[in-house]
């Protein structure tokens, strides 16, 4: 069953006086539990696809349906609710809230969802333990390494029980060993919790981990490869 359905998405930007066609009609279906990499060189449109699927950017034309919700029918407020409950984000630069500790960053999403304080604490600690951050609950982002921050970001993304997790070049700022360990962890979550992961990347290691690679070039899908199991 398709968890993400994008149909003929087009997007253009104006950069100064130049019109840039970021997406020229991208259509893609992603099923529940897939581990997909959107690959391609810089400027190919992979981050734009992720942003549009995540509902933080609007396509000029085409439609996006995530877990049965058609974005074109939704208000900004409804989109915010959808992002909160159905979509998890992992950014290249981790983007944790700097004034909150690791535990509070993870709890914050549940706070927005209305989860009780006791439940939040229990769940946040359990998930931080799962990503290998036992005992580092009260550390602020500035007191964690890049790899540890990205693990907190993954914990934050997964704690809300989302339908999909969108990860924009999650390993770009990490050394290969840390990146590999992070991908192992994501793969484990994908396998054990059946969470759908969609990456944007040009890192070969990520592509090796992916079960499916959607290659983009100049705003169009060049090829869509599903690896053999």
């Amino acid at each position, binding site marked *: 069953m398709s968890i993400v359905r994008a149909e003929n998405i087009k997007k253009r930007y104006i950069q100064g006086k130049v019109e840039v066609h970021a997406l020229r009609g991208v259509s893609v279906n992603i099923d529940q539990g897939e581990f997909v990499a959107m690959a391609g060189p810089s400027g190919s449109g992979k981050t734009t696809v992720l942003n549009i699927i995540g509902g*933080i950017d609007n396509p000029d034309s085409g439609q996006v349906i995530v877990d049965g919700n058609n974005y074109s029918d939704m208000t900004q407020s409804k989109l*915010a609710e959808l992002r909160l409950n159905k*979509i998890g984000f992992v*950014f290249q630069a981790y983007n944790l809230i*700097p*004034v909150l500790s690791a535990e509070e960053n993870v*709890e*914050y999403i549940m706070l927005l969802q209305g989860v009780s304080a006791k439940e939040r604490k229990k769940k946040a600690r359990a998930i931080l333990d799962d990503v290998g951050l036992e005992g580092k609950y009260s550390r602020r982002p500035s007191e964690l390494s890049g790899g540890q921050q990205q693990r907190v970001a993954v914990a934050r993304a997964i704690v809300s029980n989302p339908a999909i997790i969108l990860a924009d070049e999650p390993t770009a700022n990490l050394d290969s060993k840390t990146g590999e360990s992070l991908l192992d962890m994501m793969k484990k979550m994908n396998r054990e919790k059946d969470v759908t992961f969609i990456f944007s990347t040009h890192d070969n290691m990520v592509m090796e981990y992916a079960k499916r690679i959607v290659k983009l070039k100049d705003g169009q899908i060049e090829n869509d490869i599903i690896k053999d199991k």
Partner: protein
Amino acid sequence: MSTDMKMAFRNIWRSPVRTILTLSAIAFAAIILVFMVSFQLGSYEIMVNSSVKIYTGHIRIQAEGYREKRNMRFVISSPERIAKTVEKIEEIKSYSFRANGFSLVSSENRARGVLVTGIDPEGEAEISTISGLIRKGEYLAPGDRDKVLIGRLLARNLKVGINDELTILGQGKDGSIAAGIVTVKGIFSSGIDDFDRSTVQVPLSYFNDLFYMDGAVHEIVCTADSLFDVNKIKRLLKANLSEKKQKKVVVLDWKELLPGLVQGIQLDLASAAIFYFILVLVVAFSILNTFLMAILERTKEFGVMLALGVKPNRLFKLVLMESSFLTLTGVITGVVVGCAITFWFQTHGIDLAGASEILKEYGMSGIVYPKLSIVSALAGPLLVFVITICAALYPAFKVKKLVPVDAIRSI
């Protein structure tokens, strides 16, 4: 503490130097306002009390039309009857009768037109500070008859001293000529030049005989313990006097008796209010700049929060909460420090020796005591709070309107 409050508090302290500078600007504005408003109120009170206590009194009861026409025949015929009403009002501290006549007063060498006032020496000492302002000679005693007190400038103009004789020539209540010879018993200096130049005070009994008053007086002057009691006294007097059918008398308070002083205070207040507003506006603009910088630095963070599902209204509240914490802390600090400084000066006074000539015009000494009150402690800081919060609304609205993807892309 809720997570949002915790975040707001921590965000404030992300840049301690900037926060301390902003807090200092807010606190400084509040301190200035607390002190300046207290100083103004203190100087007004001194001005009013000086004028009131030297001669005017807080309240005067006069015959209807006397204030406008100053006609000798507009009198209170039975002052004792009104005095009984006055005595029943607890808030009236003291009262005394007065009668006035414009006359020509001449010494051996010179003559001047003056206001001769008949006073009850004992009663007058309760309502006026003249008895304490005698610079030469003595104050009038209860048994005195043809003795007078004159102002320092009048004594100089007439070239008279203690025990010199003066001739008073005026018109009695019945239209006949009032003439008498009196002796200077005391010379006073009130600090109000006009008053010191044109006032002669004689015992009321002597005035009564000299001007053929038949026991009538022109006014009953009352004083209160505090300016705040004046309105109540006026209301009670009016009610009681109309009950007793004393329709031909009017009750005037110090604001009606000293309109120039009231206008002076109003003008001073208005110009000060403009100055204060500009001061607060300057502070508000510098704070707006700080808030905008803080928001600009965190645009990406706000974008990420929006992407995670935080609703724009929640971000708006978070930003406003931060501004409110900052403003409130600054204002509270300003009020506390401002009150402490003002209180110290309220106790010790501020010596304005350089401005003593101007202050003398209002009958004030060279030392001004700021008057700390709820109004002076809170009015200015409240203005700072309101304008600063208004300044904080702009960046908060900017945050509310952020588009997640654009915000995330920002540096």
